[in-house]
């Protein structure tokens, strides 16, 4: 059995309105810190998590953006965004605060098939 597992996080939640986004990222980073091979995909409302220029001060939520600035300190394997999720929200790659690989929904099954551990929320 290999020591390090491939872990895949499917982030589908808006960054605010619940604590799901923040706590799922906490788990992703923790597993990465313990040397698992972590990859993430942002899809559905999850693409809003990595949108530039967020300011949730008006609703009293903690800004999620600094989490991604710490990204470089972690060895995250791959970061994906599902193409249609961006398009139907009128967003472009340049609206995102981090470098990502854009993939089509039909590539997702193959990607998931390669992973040891899936965390979908």
């Amino acid at each position: 059995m290999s020591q390090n597992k491939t872990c895949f996080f499917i982030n589908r939640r808006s960054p605010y309105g619940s604590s799901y986004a923040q706590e799922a990222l906490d788990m992703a980073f923790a597993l990465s810190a313990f040397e698992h091979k972590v990859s993430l995909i942002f899809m559905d409302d999850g693409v809003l998590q990595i949108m530039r220029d967020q300011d949730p001060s008006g609703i009293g939520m903690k800004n999620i953006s600094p989490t991604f600035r710490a990204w470089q300190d972690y060895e995250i394997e791959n970061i994906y965004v599902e193409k249609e999720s961006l398009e139907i929200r009128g967003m472009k790659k340049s609206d995102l605060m981090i470098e990502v690989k854009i993939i089509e929904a039909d590539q997702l099954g193959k990607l998931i098939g390669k992973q040891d551990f899936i965390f979908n929320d």
Partner: protein
Amino acid sequence: MKFTIIVNNAPYQSQSSDTACKFAQALISEGHDLEQVFFYFDGVWNALVSAEPPQDDRHVIENWSQLAQENNLDLIICSTAAKRRGVGPSIAPGFKVDTLGRLSEAITLSDRVITFGGS
């Protein structure tokens, strides 16, 4: 086969925790190993020691405690998630507070990790 179970929902409002507990029992009775049950997000509410459901309802939290006691199981609640919600320091029997590092170990050791609840 060695399993780890993750529970992401609080008891009662959803059935995730009940199902996870039954799944855990089924695993063990089929002769599989259960490495750990890890409680995350609102799942940490499953360790609430003061819960008193009506007598004609099932006691989800006691079901977990009993499962832990009978099988010498580790029921781990995430310390950060628990502190954020004010769960603990006093928690139900069989539960322990620990970090995501414990989950990381369990993932390393397990053949399968099954998640209940979350969406």
